């Protein structure tokens, strides 16, 4: 068995360069991970600090140097926060608003989008462009007239001003849903029509079941926006018992000297529903945002 020295060195070289490449890739990955982990830690620091504070004793709040992770976590702080602030009440109020808004969006948006996506009628394009341009109108411009209108109708300090608009379709969702419905083949409509389905039967039996991804985006965004909404509730609500969680927290922060260990717990609790919805729906959420980003 004779081995050609030239061939050996060639294969050896090949192996060596492959090893080098693998090593370089490994180092590259390590650097990327290091950068990403550092960045992630920096980004999560405010949230971490909130969580850490919520488990401290009052005297530990001002301690220097601060304890990063409380050695003796006070889980009882949470019970105390719920006792001290009407957190459960505020979260329930937010939940009521969220559910009412989701129902409104689900009732109105698919029907309106169906009109835009499936029927031809005079001035359709004008109406569509009008609707799109309303997406660009900042909400603050409407506040004074609507406030006066609600005042005259005796609707201030009720939930109606925060719920009603959802039942007439938000332009953003209508646009999203219209674009989605346009991707559903019309042959399905025709097949159903031959089977004797009317226009509304087609919508509810054929199209809506196929729109689940877009409907998920509508539900998730309605949840997030309603839960986080601040400007409209502070204008349209007065009785502090009826505040949603966002306004409730700001109310307590503005009026009382704060026990920060309890208050950080309350703030953390207030974002948990958001985080839960976000974790379960992030794929749809990002997909929905992406669809808008590309089309816009």
């Amino acid at each position: 068995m004779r081995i050609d020295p030239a061939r050996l060195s060639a294969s050896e070289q090949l192996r060596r360069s492959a090893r080098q490449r693998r090593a370089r890739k490994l180092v590259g990955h390590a650097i990327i991970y290091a950068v990403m982990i550092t960045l992630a830690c920096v980004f999560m620091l405010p949230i971490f600090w909130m969580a850490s504070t919520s488990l401290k004793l009052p005297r530990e709040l001002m301690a220097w140097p601060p304890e990063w992770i409380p050695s003796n976590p006070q889980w009882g702080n949470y019970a105390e926060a719920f006792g001290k602030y009407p957190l459960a009440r505020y979260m329930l109020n937010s939940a009521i608003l969220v559910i009412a808004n989701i129902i409104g969006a689900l009732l109105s948006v698919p029907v309106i989008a169906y009109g835009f996506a499936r029927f031809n009628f005079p001035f359709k394009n004008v109406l569509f462009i009008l609707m799109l341009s309303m997406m660009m109108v900042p909400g603050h411009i409407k506040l004074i007239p609507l406030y006066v209108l609600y005042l005259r109708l005796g609707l201030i300090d009720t939930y109606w001003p925060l719920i009603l608009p959802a039942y007439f379709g938000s332009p953003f969702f209508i646009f999203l849903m219209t674009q989605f419905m346009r991707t559903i083949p019309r042959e399905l409509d025709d097949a159903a029509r031959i089977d004797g389905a009317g226009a509304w039967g087609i919508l509810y039996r054929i199209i809506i079941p196929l729109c689940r991804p877009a409907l998920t985006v509508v539900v998730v965004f309605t949840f997030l926006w309603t839960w986080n909404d601040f400007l409209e509730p502070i204008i349209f609500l007065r009785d502090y018992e009826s505040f949603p969680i966002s306004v409730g927290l700001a109310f307590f922060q503005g009026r009382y000297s704060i026990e920060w260990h309890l208050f950080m717990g309350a703030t953390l609790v207030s974002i948990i529903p958001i985080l839960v919805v976000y974790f379960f729906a992030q794929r749809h959420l990002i997909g929905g945002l992406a669809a808008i980003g590309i089309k816009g």
Partner: protein
Amino acid sequence: MRRGTEGAQGPGDGGGNLMLSAWRNLTAQQRRDAKTGYLALSPWMVGFVVFYAFPIIATIYFSFNEWTLAEPPTWVGLDNYVRMFTRDPLFVSSLKATTLFVIISLPTKLVLGLMLALLLNLKIPGMNAFRTIFFIPAVISGVAVSLMWIWFLNPDTGVVNTLLSYFGIRGPLWFWDLHWALPSVAIMSIWKVGGAAIIYLAGLQNIPAHLYEAAEIDGASKWSRFWRITLPLLTPTLFFQLIIELIDAFKIFTEAYVITHGGPLKATYFFLYYFYEEAFRNANMGYASALALFLLVVIMGCTVFVVRTSKGWVYYEN
């Protein structure tokens, strides 16, 4: 041509004729379709009148009146606008604070968002977890974010000043410092950069891979691949992002309400906060309407400007 002459007959009249003639040209089936279409759109049309057309027109009308809700509005012509532009120091400071905030936060967010998106676009295992983490600040509420940042930037016991003190640096008073208050609010808003990054990421993933492969074969460096392929093909996303962030930045409100109350010394007295105080604390509905309209015109003006210039720098494949 014909449509032009019909339109010239007068606004109401011409519209009616146009509508009628359009209707007459339809077959029975088309008319049935059109009726269903209008029926489907009817909730939106009602909503448009009640929640958009009426409030916008009413705001324009109110802006020419003095009105404190106690008595009926009195017509004052252009007085509100004259006051706004000639003798209102609060208007000037709120405009200054808002503009400064937009100038600091908008470009930073656009650039950092892109850099973060490029990182998140790297193909390594576990990247989805990082995407989830960086997007979290963008989904939580403005109030919760404001509250946690009050504590985070606390001058005595906050994290940032504690970390600075390890290096022997005495940190600023942040929200409570005349010069640092506005940058602090901007930093908070930049913390939400993940929202922009996610949209960039979608744009990045839409760039066809064969372009990069072709460039690699031609021996293009990573650097030139970024400038020649990635950036040009990302301009539509950049354009969209610019408009969204621009509108958003002008509407900054919650931070001023919850954290700074516009202070110290009006350093963070943002425009929308001024509008809110004028309308819903002082009940100066007329003047507040004029302020609201001014902000609308500024936002629309900036948007139109961006759209106009976009032809020069936004790349469209078709």
